[in-house]
């Protein structure tokens, strides 16, 4: 019984780590430009496909494809931001929603065209398969790796934002764009870089998540709600809020599917509405 609970917590944490990895970039960009981006999942999907393509066509090992998944998505994000999204920063939220929904539709169709409709697999190396016994509990090796990677990235991201010059500029821009611009910070550039970083992390999450979330052309739509939830419940513009939100969502989703499988995604959606109404400005929301 207890090992059951620990197993669920563990799976939930691994799942939550992925949600956080994909969602954190969205949190930063939403906090920075107040830009509602429903297309964030498309960049996670792109990372997943980069990894699958390199693995299948070039025979690269899975772990080796991960940096490319990050870079590929970051590059796509940068291009999309410069060409398209930056035109919408001053637009209404309705326009942003519509535009990014359109982007999602087109990217789903594009993925379908290039990679087909089927579920993709990642070629997991042997040493990541199976389980390992930690303190008397069997834990999936791959999920351990996931949690470790995301923990390391979170620390790195936190240090980047709190210790570096770039991080200080980002924080200044999140706080007050006009004041930051007044201090001579190139807000446009900062945002492009943040967008690229965020989409890159999403791409990494998409590749790492093939094993857990799956990968097919419907991915951006299927998980859109989850990524948005991480941000909206966690509060845009922060790291800690989305982290907590992602873990709550991950654990509840896994527990719900384990204990009441007949309820399906129902639990998570109800939880979402309750959380949204209970914390209208997010768990870590600085903007009350």
């Amino acid at each position, binding site marked *: 019984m207890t090992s059951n609970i620990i197993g669920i917590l563990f799976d939930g944490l691994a799942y939550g780590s992925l949600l956080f990895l994909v969602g954190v970039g969205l949190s930063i960009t*939403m906090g920075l430009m107040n830009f*509602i981006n429903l297309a964030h999942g498309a960049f996670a999907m792109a990372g997943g496909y980069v990894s699958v393509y390199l693995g299948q066509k070039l025979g690269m090992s899975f772990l080796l494809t991960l940096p490319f998944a990050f870079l590929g998505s970051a590059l796509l994000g940068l291009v999309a931001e410069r060409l*398209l999204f930056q*035109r*919408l920063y001053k*637009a209404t*939220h*309705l*326009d942003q*929603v*519509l*535009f990014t*929904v*359109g*982007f*999602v*539709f*087109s*990217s*789903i*169709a*594009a993925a*379908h*065209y290039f990679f087909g409709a089927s579920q993709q697999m990642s070629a997991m190396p042997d040493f990541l398969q199976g389980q390992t016994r930690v303190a008397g509990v069997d834990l999936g090796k791959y999920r351990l790796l996931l949690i470790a990677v995301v923990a390391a990235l979170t620390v790195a991201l936190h240090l980047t934002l709190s210790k570096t010059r770039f991080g200080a500029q980002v924080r200044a821009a999140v706080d007050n764009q006009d004041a930051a611009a007044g201090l001579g910070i190139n807000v446009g550039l900062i945002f492009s870089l943040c967008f690229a970083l965020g989409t890159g992390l999403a791409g990494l999450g998409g590749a790492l998540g093939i094993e857990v979330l799956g990968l097919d052309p419907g991915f951006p*739509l299927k998980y859109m*709600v989850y990524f*948005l*939830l991480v941000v*909206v419940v966690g509060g*845009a513009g922060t790291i800690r809020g989305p982290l907590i939100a992602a873990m709550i969502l991950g654990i509840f989703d896994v527990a719900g599917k384990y204990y009441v499988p*007949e*309820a*399906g*995604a*129902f639990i998570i*959606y*109800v939880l*979402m*509405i309750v959380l*949204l*109404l209970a914390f*209208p*400005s997010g768990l870590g929301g600085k903007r009350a």
Partner: protein
Amino acid sequence: MTIVSGLPHSSRPLASRSGSSRMNHRSVAVDRLASPRPRLFEAVVWLLPAVAYFVFPDNLALGVSIMTYAVAVLALDLVLGYAGIVSLGHAAFFGIGAYAAGLLAANGWREPLTGLLLAGAASLMIGFFASFLVVRGKDLTRLMVTLGIGLVVYELANRLSSITGGMDGLSGFEVSPIFGVFAFDLYGKTAWWYVYGVSLVVFIFLRFVVSSPFGLSLRAIREGVNRMPALGASVNSRLRIAFTISAGVAGIAGGLLAQTTQFVGIDSLSVPRAAEFLVMLVLGGTGRLYGALAGTAIFMIAHDYLADIDPVYWEFWMGLLLMAVVLFARGGIVGALFNLVPSLKARFGRAAQ
């Protein structure tokens, strides 16, 4: 005449300058107020479907679905185009109406008009409860709540498959003749006139709503929600009413779908369906009712042609179209037309004088 603000008449800055230009300014302003009175072009617009009925007798089914969806998109226009609430969950109310009408017929209540009203009422009630959740948040939270409602309703329909038929959908029900006389035929002629009549009635109803003080207050909320409390208005109750009416109308659209196709698929309350409603509305233009009609017609006709070729291509072009409309044609198709007409009017008006 009452002295409104208590200022003595003699001190009015412009009152005595020119009596005729004064009346002119006043009547111009009054003419710009929304009115439910039909204009000539509207008669033409509403004759178009009837023309299509006779010119394209083989495409009646397409006509029926265009008009059905147009009712749902009109409902969305009320909350989005007028009140400014972006709803990603409106398919939920469409689907609730569809299931309600389908289940009524499947359980023996085959009279179509009362069935349709009951379908609308079911949706209206659920919309009423949902509206309390929707208006609580702001902006993104609100968007997510509408999305959440859509997802919850979808999951519910999926789980309650013993009632709804789950993934297989609800079928095998029949609807009695309208007024006990006009039976639904294989060619869809009866269905066509039925949906035409209902959509016209719904349109006229909504036209009254948006031309009323209530309609003006919705537009004011969209334009400047922060000012409303300073006028003594409680924004949330106004938005709740709009959302509830809209849910009811969407339910009627769903009821039409169920009655005319005698089938309700679970995709009728899916989020992609809700997104399609959004696309149709934005394509036609928000906040002017006719945008909803034009957008739906063009979307459905394009879908009919392009999706036959390849559904995946269709999705791609739809996405591209949506992005293009946002970037380049914010008023939608009807917005562009309305921008053209005043310039034409100005030219011809001057020539006539």
